[in-house]
């Protein structure tokens, strides 16, 4: 009898923190856009359908409620990643040569998706989005408490500069999400693994 062999691709903790993070980031971005609309930094507003909270007060309530979810969930994930070698094992090494090779292969549509293993471009983008999330949280803390956390706000160039950094971090995270979702659409079989944790192990996939 043929038995389909499956392998564990995403541990339970990674799956749980991933989906909590997805929800928290959606809330943070949409409520953040509503807050932005109250006093736009640049010459545009976000469309109302893309915002959360209905008005400035509602949006801030969402933003400052969901931030706890983002921060605590993020801390759990980072602690896990550092303690159990998850980051070292899956996100490293990243060298310019590896990134360049994989990037060229991806553009030529020759980059193979290997179950349970990230290519160098993926590794780089996951590390960058992690750093952007940390930047978003730090600049957000500086905006929330520019007096109590004035050392942090000062480090980021003061309140007005921190506002712009917060925006840039958001834009980077949103760009990552767009890329991330496009790739899921291109390679849909990666999605079930992030729910069940397991993927079918093909003999040829391990090469």
């Amino acid at each position, binding site marked *: 009898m043929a038995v389909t062999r499956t392998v564990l691709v995403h541990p339970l903790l990674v799956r749980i923190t991933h989906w909590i993070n997805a929800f928290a980031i959606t809330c943070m971005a949409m409520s953040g856009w509503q807050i932005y609309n109250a006093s736009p*930094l640049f010459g545009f507003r976000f469309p109302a*359908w893309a915002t959360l909270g209905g*008005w400035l007060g509602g949006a801030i309530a969402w933003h400052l*409620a969901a931030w706890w979810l983002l921060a605590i969930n993020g801390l759990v994930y980072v602690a896990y990643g550092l303690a159990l070698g998850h980051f070292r094992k899956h996100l490293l090494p990243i060298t310019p040569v590896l990134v360049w090779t994989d990037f060229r292969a991806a553009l030529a549509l020759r980059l193979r998706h290997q179950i349970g293993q990230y290519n160098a471009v993926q590794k780089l983008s996951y590390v960058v989005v992690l750093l952007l999330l940390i930047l978003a949280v730090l600049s957000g803390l500086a905006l929330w408490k*520019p*007096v*109590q956390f*004035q050392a942090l706000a000062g480090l980021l160039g003061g309140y007005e500069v921190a*506002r712009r950094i917060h925006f840039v971090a958001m834009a980077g995270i949103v760009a990552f999400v767009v890329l991330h979702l496009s790739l899921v659409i291109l390679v849909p079989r990666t999605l079930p693994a992030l729910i069940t944790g397991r993927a079918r192990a093909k003999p040829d996939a391990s090469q």
Partner: protein
Amino acid sequence: MSKISSRDFQPQLRRLERRLFLRSSLSLGALTLLTGCNLQDGDTTDRVLWAMSRFNDRMQALLFNPNTLAPTYAASEITRPYPFNAFYGEDDAPEIDAADWKLEVSGMVQDRTAWTLDRLRELPQESQITRHICIEGWSAIGQWSGVPLREFLKRVGADTRARYVGFKCADRYYSSIDMATALHPQTVLALDFIGRPLPTEFGFPLRLRVPTKLGFKSPKHIAAIFVTNDYPGGYWEDQGYNWFSGS
């Protein structure tokens, strides 16, 4: 010439109808998504958001350090022209006659005598150049001077173990702050803005200036101050702005 009948346009009309239906159902969907998340409907999501806002009040009270001063700036950094902001237009700011004006004091205080402007000017004055940060995101640097609120509370014999200091204003605005912030050295009952008596649009004759909180916690045109243990809320706070709103 053939007669134009509505029948000729039937397919297009149907398509248009379908499109309009789709659009309205989309915005209906968006609406159902939005109701219950704006703090004003009282459903489960709202209750969670209000509870989180009260939790954030407590966290901010813990984070508040009574000895941490808001950064101060040079006179050259003052924002000019200084922006006006209120829940009404600039032309609707109340015109107040200084001679008739009196500041009422009530609640947990020993001396409830009303204060005139002259008496307030006789008290020790403090000046500060600090950044005013609006809940909308923008900020502006201004110079305010007047009586430190803690000095005023001492003079009226306020019970500083009380939880709140509340403010009622001539423009129907009202707000309240925690006692720890009321006693902060930079919390000032401002009489002057950039060296001159407060202009009408910036709160003549008396406004609060709290550089450790967002701008809406600094009410203008103050008519009454009270000390209380009963949560007084505020104009925006009652609609959903976070009450503590510390900086």
